């Protein structure tokens, strides 16, 4: 702290009358609010310019570009962004309203982009001033529920505190509720979540994620949870065209390209993979591409000739046709390295 040179050392004096009204504001960095209140209300506001200045459009445009399909999801994000922009504008006219409730539920099959979108959502809400920090804390049941009596509440609260100012993303939230065991500690975690979702809406956004049907079941046995969630967003499975488009984006990001004939091969591969068990949408695309990279590398090394920059970037059709989805006997499928008879 800097000392005023004219004030000698010694005991601080007791505050003079009138002192207490002005100084604490300045000390605690609260002077801003006093200023804001004094400023005259604006006559009109350019909502569009406000939104642009917040940088929220950049995030939404990135989202449009980098995520294929997902139209209902993108629409909803735009709507939420618009709501918050308008809310900000209203506030500046002194039209106070309760802050909108933004707890959400994302439902969809594995690999449909729920985690990815949740991360973007945190950024959007931060840019619009709804969240102070805009980070994402992703957890599952294990991180919330304890092992013995008295263990759950502190554990859940610890996670909630870490997520304050950002988004708490609970994957497969229905595991919190065990129907067969009513003394399960999960119920305790749910109750603490509900309490914070209600009382600290300004500080945290909770997003639950999981399969559609099991989530519905979860909400019907925990009506309190269902009613506190304003936005239910469904992530549809991707069709074949989208999967191929996703593959192109992923390759592009990693500086690879499909050679002639490789893309149809990949399309063929995906159409086979889609019908198989444990198909995980975009994540299966990513895994298939990983393996294609592996085979490309293997091919380039075993060819033993000099390679060009172009060679290093190109995924050939043969890199894809060597996939086990083409080579395995139809009667059995190898999944994650294990042989599983499919009957």
């Amino acid at each position, binding site marked *: 702290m800097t000392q005023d040179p004219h004030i000698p050392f010694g005991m601080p004096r007791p505050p003079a009358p009138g002192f207490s009204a002005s100084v604490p504001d300045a000390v*605690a*960095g*609260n002077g801003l609010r006093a200023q804001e209140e004094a400023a005259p209300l604006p006559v009109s506001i350019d909502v569009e310019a406000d939104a642009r200045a917040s940088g929220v459009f950049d995030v939404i445009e990135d989202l449009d570009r980098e995520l294929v399909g997902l139209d209902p999801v993108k629409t909803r994000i735009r709507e939420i962004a618009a709501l918050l922009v308008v809310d900000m504008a209203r506030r500046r006219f002194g039209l106070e309203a309760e802050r909108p409730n933004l707890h959400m539920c994302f439902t969809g099959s594995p690999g449909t982009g729920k985690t990815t979108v949740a991360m973007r959502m945190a950024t959007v809400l931060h840019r619009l001033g709804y969240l102070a920090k805009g980070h994402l804390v992703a957890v599952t049941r294990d991180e919330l529920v304890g092992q013995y009596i008295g263990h759950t509440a502190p554990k859940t609260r610890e996670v909630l505190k870490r997520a*304050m100012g950002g988004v708490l993303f609970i994957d497969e939230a229905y595991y919190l509720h065990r129907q067969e065991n009513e003394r399960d500690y999960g119920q305790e975690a749910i109750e603490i979540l509900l309490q914070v979702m209600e009382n*600290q809406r300004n*500080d945290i956004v909770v997003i639950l994620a999981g399969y559609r049907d099991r989530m519905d079941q979860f909400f019907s046995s925990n009506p309190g949870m269902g009613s506190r969630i304003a936005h239910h967003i469904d992530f549809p499975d991707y069709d074949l065209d989208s999967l191929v488009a996703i593959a192109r984006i992923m390759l592009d990001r990693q500086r690879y390209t499909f050679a002639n004939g490789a893309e149809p091969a990949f399309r063929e591969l995906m159409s086979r993979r889609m019908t198989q068990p444990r198909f995980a949408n975009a994540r299966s695309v990513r895994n298939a591409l990983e393996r294609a990279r592996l085979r490309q590398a293997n091919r380039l090394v075993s060819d033993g000739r000099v390679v060009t920059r172009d060679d290093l970037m190109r995924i050939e059709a043969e890199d894809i046709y060597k996939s086990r989805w083409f080579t395995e006997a139809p009667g059995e499928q190898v999944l994650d390295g294990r042989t599983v008879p499919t009957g």
Partner: protein
Amino acid sequence: MLVTQGTFSYLPPLTDAQVKAQVQYALDNDWAMSVEFTDDPHPRNFLWDMWGLPMFDMRDPAAILLEVQRCRDAYPARYVRVNAYDRRLGRQTTALSFIVQRPKNETGFRLERQEGPDRQVRYTLHPYALDRGAGERYER
């Protein structure tokens, strides 16, 4: 009387908004925060009871204010303070410590005189609150 102690002892009690701003400052400095409470108002009493464990890895002041509020709710008639610990080598000490709640009726102190040999007098401060048992010193 108003018992003051710690970093802002020369200021009137902080409002919640001001507490939040201070906590934000501490978090920006990467200091670990903790909440403590006591019902012994003596200025030399620095060993307060801990409210839970110290908090690391927090991003937002709301997390610390949540614990402050829980402590206030559990002990509405005690002193509650927030500490910030700077773990950096060369400092490794409490960087910030301030009271965020006081009992409604602070009963104050009396001056006690102890007569010694040769007409010597030793003075000591005795909080009236200490005359009652721990835990019921500020009830009502």
